[in-house]
């Protein structure tokens, strides 16, 4: 019995420590450069020789090779955002053309010292930048809830409907109203 109590105490302490670690690891709320809000780092390459190509609006072949080697979709166009930062665009596959009719912003190349960091944009970036244009709704919560995630909301509605039906089955009085007392 004693052993169980002690091991339970240890288990609780370890679990608490794990929660503290997890809470420390969450990115700052509202940080625009955190991975979920902006982009995720894929890999590094040496900047030597690539800068000229990028500045002229050409995708360097060695960079394209590295991207392809990792099984990631190939970019087709470069656009400079500011000094030392470039966007790579790509054309969606043919069967996705109905949903994404134009070029999609996909990679971010950032100069870090004498290296180039290759980042991939998060979903949220596209969500914020193109949602209003695509749906004519200014509230990004609503177009997320009702349009992009329409199936999800249909499921939520049926959960509420199920709650209503269960209450109806369990609690409804069967025809006797205490009315005429």
């Amino acid at each position, binding site marked *: 019995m004693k052993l169980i109590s002690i091991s339970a105490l240890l288990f609780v302490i370890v679990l608490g420590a794990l929660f503290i670690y997890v809470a420390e690891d969450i990115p700052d709320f509202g940080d625009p450069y955190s991975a979920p809000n902006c982009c995720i780092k894929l890999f590094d390459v040496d900047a030597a020789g690539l800068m000229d190509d990028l500045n002229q609006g050409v995708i360097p072949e060695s960079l394209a090779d590295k991207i392809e080697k990792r099984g990631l979709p190939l970019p087709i166009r470069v656009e400079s955002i500011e000094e030392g930062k470039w966007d790579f665009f790509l054309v969606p596959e043919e069967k996705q053309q109905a949903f994404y009719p134009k070029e999609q912003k996909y990679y971010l190349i950032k100069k870090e010292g004498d290296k180039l960091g290759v980042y991939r944009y998060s979903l949220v970036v596209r969500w914020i930048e193109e949602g209003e244009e695509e749906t004519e709704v200014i*509230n990004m919560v609503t177009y997320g809830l009702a349009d992009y995630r*329409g199936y999800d909301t249909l499921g939520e509605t049926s959960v509420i409907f199920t709650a209503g039906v269960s*209450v109806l089955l369990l609690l409804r009085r069967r025809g006797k109203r205490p009315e005429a007392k």
Partner: protein
Amino acid sequence: MNTEKSETGEGKKRSGDVIVETVSRVMVPFIQLFALYVIMHGSSGPGGGFQGGVIFGASFVLLVIAFGIVNAGDRFPEAVNTALFSTGVYIYAGVGLLCIICSFGAAQYLNYGFLSLPVHFEERRALGMDFIEIGVGITVMAVIAEIFFNLAWKKEEDEGEE
């Protein structure tokens, strides 16, 4: 409200406070109007079907608190309520199905851009969202009212048996 019954009927329990009754009678239409506003402005501000539906349901809860379940229950027939909460889901699923029907099978389920409305593609998506928000609002309102009314009737019955 039916005041005659309350004076004579024994089973008609009320809060008995004239202030509570008058205030809630005045407030309920405004709460319901606000609920409709919240549902319809889901696309241009904070709000949406879930929130608006809960506010609408809360107006019925206020009625029951002020007038008692026996009086307020008559105002909101249960058969209508039962029909309403499936109507909401039908509206939602129906709009989704309409997208397929209007495009002769070319579009996906819930792809509002293909609804046959006399506006351009993006605007149709906005309107489709409004329709499904109405459906969600109706369901949430009816379910909140249903749950609260049934619990209140249960309590009323239990007290009647004692």
